[in-house]
C-alpha cells in the first residue's frame, strides 16, 4: 500500500475517533452542569475542557468569559478551532476524500454525508434542537463509520492502519479524561452526592457505567474506576484493550524498519498486561498517565516514520 494512502487512512480514523471522544466528553460535562452546583464548580469543568485540549490561548483570543455556552460553541462548531468537532469531521472527510478509492463506497458515503450534515447546521440550530441530541448524532455517525469499516472493508493493510489510528487516538483520549477527572475529583475528597455523579459521568463518557456495575457489582470508588479504564482488557475504551489492538495490528503490518516501534509498543503493552492498579497508584496516577501519553505520542511518531512518511529513497 502507498505510504501516503496509509497516512490518510490513519488520520481519517484518528479524526473520527477524536470527534466521538469530544462529543462524549462535552456531553457528560453538559449533563453534569445540569446537576445543582456552584457556578464556580460548573465553570471549572468547562475550563477544564479547554485545558484538556491545550487550547487556553486560542480560546482566550476569542472569548473573555469561560462558560458553558462559549465553550460549547468553541468546541462544537468553531471552524477556526482545529480541535472542534466541526474541524475533526472536516479533517476526517478530507483524509477520506484523498483516498476514497481505497475505501468502500459505504464507508465513503458515510463519512461524506456526516460532513455534509455537520456543515449544514449552525450552532444556534444545534442548541435549539438540544445539544445532547447532536452529541448522540456524532457518536452514532462514528459508530456507523466503524460499522461500515468492519462490515465492508477487506481486512488488509488498509484496515490495520485504520484500526491503529482509532486505537492510538482512543488510548490517548481515555488517558486524558481519566487524568483530568481523577486530578480534579480526588484531592477534594468530599463524599457528597456530587462526587458520585462526577464519577458516574466519567464512566458514562466512556460508555463504562453499566460495565462497571457488571464487573464490580459494588459502589463506585475512584481506584476501581482507574483500574477499569486502565487495566481491564475487555473494556473497549480501556488502555489495555487499545494496546492489545495496537500490538496486534503493528505485528500485521511489520516491515523491515518497524522493529523498534513494535518493541516500544510491546513494552507499553506489558505494563498494562502485567500491571496492578496498586502499583500504578503508588507510583502516582498522574505521573503514570503522563508517561503513558508521552509514549503513545512517540508510538504515533514511530509509526509515521516507519510506514507513513518514509524519508529514504533507497531501493
Amino acid at each position: 500500500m502507498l505510504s501516503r494512502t496509509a497516512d490518510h487512512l490513519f488520520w481519517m480514523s484518528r479524526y473520527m475517533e477524536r470527534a466521538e471522544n469530544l462529543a462524549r466528553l462535552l456531553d457528560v460535562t453538559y449533563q453534569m452542569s445540569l446537576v445543582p452546583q456552584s457556578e464556580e464548580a460548573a465553570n471549572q469543568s468547562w475550563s477544564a475542557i479547554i485545558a484538556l485540549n491545550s487550547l487556553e490561548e486560542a480560546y482566550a483570543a476569542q472569548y473573555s468569559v469561560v462558560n458553558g455556552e462559549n465553550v460549547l460553541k468553541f468546541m462544537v462548531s468553531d471552524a477556526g478551532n482545529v480541535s472542534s468537532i466541526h474541524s475533526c469531521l472536516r479533517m476526517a472527510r478530507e483524509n477520506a476524500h484523498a483516498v476514497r478509492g481505497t475505501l468502500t463506497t459505504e464507508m465513503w458515503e458515510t463519512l461524506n454525508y456526516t460532513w455534509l450534515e455537520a456543515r449544514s447546521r449552525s450552532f444556534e440550530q444545534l442548541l435549539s434542537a438540544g445539544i445532547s441530541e447532536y452529541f448522540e448524532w456524532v457518536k452514532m455517525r462514528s459508530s456507523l463509520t466503524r460499522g461500515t469499516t468492519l462490515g465492508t472493508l477487506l481486512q488488509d493493510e488498509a484496515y490495520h492502519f485504520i484500526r491503529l489510528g482509532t486505537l492510538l487516538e482512543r488510548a490517548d483520549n481515555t488517558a486524558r479524561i481519566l487524568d483530568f477527572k481523577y486530578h480534579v475529583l480526588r484531592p477534594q475528597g468530599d463524599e457528597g452526592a456530587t462526587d458520585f455523579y462526577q464519577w458516574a459521568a466519567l464512566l458514562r463518557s466512556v460508555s463504562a457505567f453499566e460495565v462497571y456495575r457488571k464487573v464490580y457489582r459494588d459502589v463506585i470508588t475512584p481506584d476501581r474506576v482507574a483500574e477499569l479504564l486502565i487495566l481491564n482488557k475487555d473494556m473497549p475504551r480501556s488502555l489495555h484493550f487499545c494496546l492489545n489492538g495496537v500490538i496486534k495490528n503493528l505485528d500485521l503490518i511489520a516491515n523491515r524498519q518497524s522493529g523498534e516501534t513494535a518493541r516500544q509498543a510491546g513494552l507499553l503493552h506489558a505494563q498494562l498486561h502485567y500491571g496492578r492498579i496498586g502499583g500504578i497508584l503508588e507510583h502516582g496516577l498522574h505521573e503514570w498517565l503522563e508517561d503513558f501519553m508521552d509514549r503513545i505520542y512517540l508510538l504515533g511518531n514511530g509509526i509515521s516514520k516507519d510506514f507513513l512518511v518514509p524519508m529514504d529513497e533507497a531501493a
Partner: protein
Amino acid sequence: MNFYNEMYDAQGGVRGHYKGYEDWLKATPPERIERKRAEADLAFHRVGITFAVYGEEAGKERLIPFDIIPRVIPSAEWKALQAGLRQRVKALNMFLWDVYHDQHILKAGVIPAEQVLNNAQYRPIMQGVDVPGRIYAHITGVDIVRAGEGEFYVLEDNLRVPSGVSYMLEDRKMMMRLFPELFAKHKVAPVQHYPDMLLEKLRAVSPKGVSNPTVVLLTPGAYNSAYFEHTFLAQQMGVELVEGRDLFVKDQVVYMRTTQGPQRVDVIYRRIDDDFLDPQVFRADSALGVPGLMQAYRAGNVTLANAVGTGVADDKSIYPYVPEMIRFYLDEEPTLNNVPTYMCRKPDDLKYVLDHLPELVVKEVHGAGGYGMLVGPASTAEQIEHFRQLLIAKPDGYIAQPTLALSNCPTFVEEGIAPRHLDLRPFVLSSGECVNMVPGGLTRVALTKGSLVVNSSQGGGTKDTWVLED
C-alpha cells in the same frame, strides 16, 4: 435553422428506437419522475460525484446535472460509428508513430512539415522512442455530433488525457437504480466492463519482459477537476492511485513509496498533462510530476498511457488533415466526416472567415473545454468585433468552422421537457492491433436554451447513452 431531433421525426412522430421509452414516459406519473430526479440529485451528492470549476472559489465542488431522458442510438447506427472510430484512431496512432520516427507523411507532402514540427505540441524528446505496440493514444475520446439522419461529424479528437468516462458509467448505474423497469423492456448494451477493458489494455502495453506488470494511475491530486474520475477508475481497476510525490526514479526505474518499502512501477496511466510530468524535462516548476520520469520512459523501463507528445495529433491545426492521414496510412476512405475547417493562417481562408464571422464557429487552435471560442450565430455584434480583432492580430492561432445544426434531444429543464443540443464522446481503447470500445459513450447536453456548447465547465449536463441491441 432546422435541427434534427433524436426522439421525434420532422412530422412529430416518435422514432422507432425511442418508442419504448416514450411509452414509458407517458405512462409514468409526473410525481414519480419528480421524486426520482430528486433521488438522483441526492445520490450524486452523497456519492460525491462532483467536479471543480476553474475560476470559481477554490475547492468548491459542483454536481454535473444528470438528465433522466437517455440518448438512444439504434444498433445499425452505432455499428457504422464504431467502424469509423476504429479507422480514425488507428490512423491517428500510425500518424504519431510516423511523426516520431521516419516522418513519411511529411516527406510525401501530405501535411506541411512546419505544421507538425513547429507545433508546440510536438515533442522532439520523443523522436526515435519505441513505445510498446506502437501505440501512443491508448485512450481516445472522440467528440461526435449529429447534424442529420446518419450524418455524423467528428468535432475533435482528444488524445492527451480525455476525461468523462466515469460519468458514462455512473449515469448508467443511476438509470438502472432509478428505473430498473426500463432495462427490463429494452435491450441496452452494457458498458460497465469499461474499467476491465482499460486494465487489460494497460497491462498489454507493459515494458518488454514484464509478465505481471504493476499498473498505477497518476493524478494531479484531490483538487483537480476530474479527481472523482481518477479515484473511481483506480478503484474499479484495483490499481494504486498515486500522486507525483508517491513516485521516485532510481537508476532509470520508477518506484512507488509503500508501507513495505519501494515497489517497482511498470505502467502509468497518467492523468497529468505532458508539461507537468517531469520537472527535469518539461516545466521546472511542476510539483505534480516525477523528476527523472522521462529518462526511465525513454529507456523503456516504464510505459506511459497516453504516450508523451500525442497533442501533435489532436491539435486543431492538425485536425483538418485527419482524413488525409486515413487515406495515407490505411488506403481507405474515411467513414466519419470531418467538419470543413478554415485555417486562418491561410490568407484566403482568413478573408472568408472575416467576411462570414456571424455564421461561423471560431476556435483557438490550442484551446479546450469550451473556453476561448466564438459561436457566431449566438454572439452579439460586440463579441464578433472582439474576435475579428483577435483574428487579425494572430491568424495562426485560430480555425473556423461552419456552425453545425447540432441535433437535440428532449431534456428536463426548468420549464418542463424541451429539446437541448447534445454531442457524444465515445472512449476508444487501443493496444497493438486491437481497437475496442464499449457501446455508446458519454452524452453531453447543453442545458441552456439554444446553446451549442456542451462542456460541463460551461454549464453542460450529461445523459445516459443507450445503444440498443437487435
